[in-house]
């Protein structure tokens, strides 16, 4: 059980109050909750990472408790009751060791660690979403039904830093209604992208002199309930209540592609931080992982309850690590023999050595990227280190899932003759070093 939670790459909160961890490699889902104490008021309404290393998940429930789940220990470690205001949590975030919560009635509270009192901000009624800026940690954005986008600075809670202005009256001279359903800060800048219940996607820029949206794109005719920026912040994935999921380009404001397969309302979307994958969950009780580049469905997991929110971990390798470890093992044996041959031969240039050194340096920052990343690669690295000190092909295969050259070459060497692998190895070394 402890092992399983470390391998889970997607965390999903359901309507029944169960936190589910999904291991995409083995295509298994694990329920982390006590089945005897289930009740509807434990329904998960918000999920967020407890820290930067993604070792803790904060689960916000409808009955206003925030539970901390540790992925290392596979159990809930803390329970915290956050009273005040009405309605479920609409946003959860962690800043500087304190917890930021926002509820539907508009009460945003910053709970300091250990103490009961909190700093409060009223952000207006009917809040649907509160979002925390990843780059400027003291900034928070809120929005809701007839509650336009406001960006708050937690150090100066009296007034919002940015207050969005509504669009001009439309062609019938009627006021344009406002209903923000989901929003996200664009990393690297101050901009915020929001999706509305009136099927619009808007980008606001506080740095620009206009308070109206800089870009507006419409998609279909149903409320857009979920939104997520892709890894390169150029496009955004949106989902609506009919299960239509689309990728919209933010630079040009046009539709790039539609992702098919979702049958019910999409309640939560999240893109992976580096790979071109997007996870979606919703009322049809399925978790789906699509590839954003070609739109294909990669994984589909049935999770039995309606799913409210999800968290996608930023692990690099989401596929079965055990298999790659095996492959690496086989390759290692080949490479052991090869390396002896190579070691006997005089080194021609420094390029081979440079390549090796670079791989080692690449390896170093890896363990520090986080315990769960280490946890993931632990078994693989341990397996490797047992047999050999350093293997180029294995480390390259482990790291470069996206870079196809090395990975495919690594796969090709499996099961081939020594000569062929040697020939390929020269190619690989030259390419890696070049």
């Amino acid at each position, binding site marked *: 059980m402890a092992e399983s939670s470390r391998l889970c790459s997607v965390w999903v909160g359901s309507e*029944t109050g169960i936190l589910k961890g999904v291991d995409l490699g083995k295509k298994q889902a694990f*329920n982390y909750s006590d089945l005897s104490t289930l009740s509807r008021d434990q329904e998960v309404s918000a999920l967020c990472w407890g820290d930067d290393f993604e070792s803790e998940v904060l689960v916000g429930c409808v009955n206003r408790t925030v539970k901390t789940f540790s992925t290392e220990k596979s159990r809930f470690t803390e329970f915290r009751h956050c009273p005040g205001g009405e309605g479920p949590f609409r946003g959860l975030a962690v800043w500087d060791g304190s917890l930021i919560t926002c509820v539907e009635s508009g009460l945003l509270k910053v709970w300091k660690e250990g103490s009961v009192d909190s700093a409060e901000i009223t952000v207006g009624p009917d809040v649907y979403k509160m979002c925390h800026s990843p780059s400027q940690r003291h900034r928070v954005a809120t929005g809701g039904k007839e509650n336009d986008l406001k960006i708050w600075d937690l150090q100066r809670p009296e007034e919002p830093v940015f207050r969005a202005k509504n669009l001009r009256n439309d062609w019938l001279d009627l006021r344009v209604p406002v209903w923000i359903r989901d929003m996200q800060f664009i990393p690297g800048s101050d901009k915020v992208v929001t999706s509305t219940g009136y099927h619009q996607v808007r980008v606001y820029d506080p740095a620009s002199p206009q308070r109206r949206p800089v870009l507006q794109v419409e998609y279909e*005719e149903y409320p857009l309930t979920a939104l997520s920026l892709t890894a390169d912040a150029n496009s955004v994935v949106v989902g609506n209540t009919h*299960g239509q999921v689309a990728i919209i380009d933010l630079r040009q404001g046009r539709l790039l592609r539609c992702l098919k397969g979702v049958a*019910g309302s999409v309640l939560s979307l999240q893109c992976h931080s580096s790979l071109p994958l997007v996870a979606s969950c919703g*009322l049809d009780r399925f978790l789906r992982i699509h590839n954003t580049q070609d739109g294909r469905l990669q994984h589909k997991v049935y999770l*039995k309850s309606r799913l409210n929110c999800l968290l996608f971990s930023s692990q690099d390798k989401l596929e079965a690590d055990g298999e790659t470890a095996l492959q690496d093992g086989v390759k290692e044996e080949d490479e052991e023999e090869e390396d002896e041959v190579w070691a006997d031969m005089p080194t021609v240039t420094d390029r081979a050595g440079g390549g090796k050194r670079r791989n080692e340096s690449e390896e170093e920052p890896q363990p520090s990227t986080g315990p769960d990343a280490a946890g993931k690669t632990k078994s693989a690295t341990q397996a490797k280190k047992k047999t050999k000190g350093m293997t180029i092909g294995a480390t390259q295969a482990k790291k470069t899932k996206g870079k196809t050259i090395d990975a495919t070459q690594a796969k090709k060497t499996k099961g081939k003759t020594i000569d062929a692998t040697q020939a390929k190895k020269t190619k690989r070394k030259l390419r890696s070093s070049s």
Partner: protein
Amino acid sequence: MDVKEVEVDFGTQEHVKKLKKKGKKQKPKKGKKPHKENGETNEEAEKAKTDEKPPEMHFPPTFSVSEIKNKQRRHFMFLKFKQEKRKEKLALKKKRKKERQALGDKAPPKEVPKTIENQRVYDETTVDPQDEEIVFDEGTDEFSAYFNRLTNPKILITTSDRPRGRTVRFCEQLATVIPDSHVYYRRGLALKRVIPQCIARGFTYLMVINEDRKISNGLILSHLPDGPTAHFKVSSVRLRKEMKRKGKEPTEHVPEVILNNFTTRLGHSIGRMFASLFPHDPNFVGRQVATFHNQRDYIFFRYHRYIFKNEKRVGIQELGPRFTLKLRSLQKGTFDSKFGVYEWVHKRHEMDSCRRKFHL
């Protein structure tokens, strides 16, 4: 006449010449050996018959009926082809039956024919009744109030605006079939305004029958306090007077309910929805039963009166209207088609691509 053996590669003209002799069967199967011409002796004809191939004209192996340009002749040849196929099939059946009889007890068991229901793609959402999570989910969902006997059903039946006679009669008959239901004329009222009034008066269901060009074609079933709304496509509506051998009118007794073949999670939700339409305790005295039978995602509604003749035999008599439903969407919450959240929407191009995949 001489017996000719013709080898290969004929032009179509040869076929046309031979076709003029009607009554001769052609062998359009490809790759067969060329057969003797029709001028054969009877013996050879008999021999040919025992091989299941009556004396035929020869033809090149690439012949097919569709190459004949003349429609009448082509049609004739095709019919002949079909007759022959049927004959072959019968002969094969006979042979198999004979073999089976010959083997007696040692005969292999009869093969089960493949049907679309047999070949159905396994749906991973099929409910396992022991699954605790699903038991909890169903125990606390919107229908739990009914299943825990906290509420009794009360249905409001109405139509789309300005209904025509057939729809009105359908509504009336539905009202006789479903106990504690009331028909109201829809005076062009908006459903979103009707719903709060219904909740205030204690209704548990709102049923709206949509009509198009004098035929009922849609059904919206909305569970009232806060429950899901299902939108169905209605087809094949048969009123009481169109039924053959119908009995007397359905009485006031509460019928029993049969729900067949709702296996998946979505099917369970819909099944529970239908079950909550009827009061809890059926009057067995009334001997009436309402059946919702799901087959290939179509739900067939039938209303019967039964009588047990002896322990093993039952007589049934169909009363009441009959109709077929197909689920189009299931929306969470009461009726709100624009801003409501949908739990399941039927998308034809994605979901109907496989003929053996069903969702209910």
